[in-house]
């Protein structure tokens, strides 16, 4: 399994966000997308998640253009964005149950355990703290396993212990043949991660 991106350009409302981005990612790899605020990290990740149309460029998964076979690609990816994607009237467990039914996976108990959510799994999400919400959201990655993780600021509002926990989960994931693309401002100290600096791309290109 591998992801290839060729000369990707992003224009939002007539403003050029970035151009000629090239990247590739295969099993066992982590790519850390860096860049200042407004550099276009979220935009890049949304394009790769299929949520935003690029102005030009090709994204291919296992050699096939994802525009041609989006279903095939989307089955293989999990995206965690800025928003929580949690129903606040439901508990964390109910939220995860729904997502795992919806994606046809079945790993909720393990997910709750991985993120140490057991004690708060049956509170409505509405009353959780910021970090607890974030963990409930991240738990979707385990509850609905998929090889490619696309993570936009996954550790914001996690405390240092949970950041470590998340880092371990991430490393386990890629060791097991998964791959991950993440945008964070905090250095997670992932030795194995390759870097992609959107600021550089601008300097080179423009």
């Amino acid at each position, binding site marked *: 399994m591998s992801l290839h991106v060729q*000369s990707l*350009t992003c*224009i939002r*409302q*007539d*403003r*050029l966000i970035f*151009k*000629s981005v090239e990247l590739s990612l295969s099993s066992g790899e982590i790519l850390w997308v860096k860049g200042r605020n407004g550099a276009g990290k979220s935009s890049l990740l949304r394009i790769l998640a299929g949520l935003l149309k690029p*102005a*030009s460029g090709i994204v291919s998964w296992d050699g096939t253009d994802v525009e041609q076979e989006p279903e095939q690609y989307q089955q293989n990816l999990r995206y965690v964005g800025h928003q929580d994607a949690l129903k606040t009237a439901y508990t964390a467990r109910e939220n995860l149950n729904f997502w795992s039914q919806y994606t046809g996976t079945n790993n909720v108990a393990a997910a709750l355990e991985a993120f140490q959510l057991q004690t708060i799994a049956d509170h409505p999400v509405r009353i959780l703290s910021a970090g607890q919400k974030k963990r409930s959201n991240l738990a979707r990655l385990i509850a609905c396993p998929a090889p490619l993780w696309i993570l936009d600021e996954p550790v914001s509002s996690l405390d240092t212990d949970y950041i470590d926990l998340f880092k371990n989960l991430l490393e386990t994931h890629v060791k097991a043949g998964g791959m991950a693309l993440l945008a964070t401002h905090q250095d997670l100290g992932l030795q194995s991660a390759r870097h992609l600096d959107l600021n550089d791309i601008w300097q080179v290109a423009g």
Partner: protein
Amino acid sequence: MAIDLHKYANPTRFLRIANAIFPWSIVVSVGLLVAGLYLGLFVAPPDYQQGETVRIMFVHVPAAWMAMSVYSMMAVSSAAGLIWKHPVADLSAKAAAPIGACFTFLALVTGSLWGQPMWGAYWVWDARLTSMLILLFLYLGYMAVWESFEDQSKAAKAAAILVLIGAINIPIIKFSVDWWNTLHQPASVATMEGPKIHGSILTPLLIMGLAYTSLFVTIFIIRVRAEILGRRLRMLRVNQLQE
């Protein structure tokens, strides 16, 4: 590297044709409008039942025709925009909408002014009148959708979806007089059997119809040109960023 800006594609051919037609369409609209109004208001005989009020017809009927045909044209070009992503298609639907809304409004106003002497009320809730009012709202909704999106290519798609669903109203307007028993009189010009009214009325009516059409074409060209220029400006800005 030049970006493939398909949606911004340069509609040169359209502009060339439009520029060629434009001076003629001004002349033709003015000429026909003068001729039509003269024939309608002074030459055509007063109706034996309605008297002089019948002359409102020469303003009202063509306006109603235009209201419906402009909407149909918008629906067709929106469909073209969605399916073939033709660059001028969305633009022309957008440019046509306010003109169509004006014709609709004109038909409504003249209709209700005519209604007072004919039916004793400015407004009755009859199927034709109501569906015409709905048409006005569809136009307004369409324009509101364009206003509500900042991203023009998104706005184009959203508006196209709306206009296509709203197209169901056009046959309703057209056949309302046949499907329900309405106060409004049934079609007598555009029928399967051909026109059923006398030539002295039919001629000015048709001339007015043509006058409105060329008036539409004139304003339409002005608006589309403005749209295309605006779009080119934005394209220039994007490309400038690229350099």
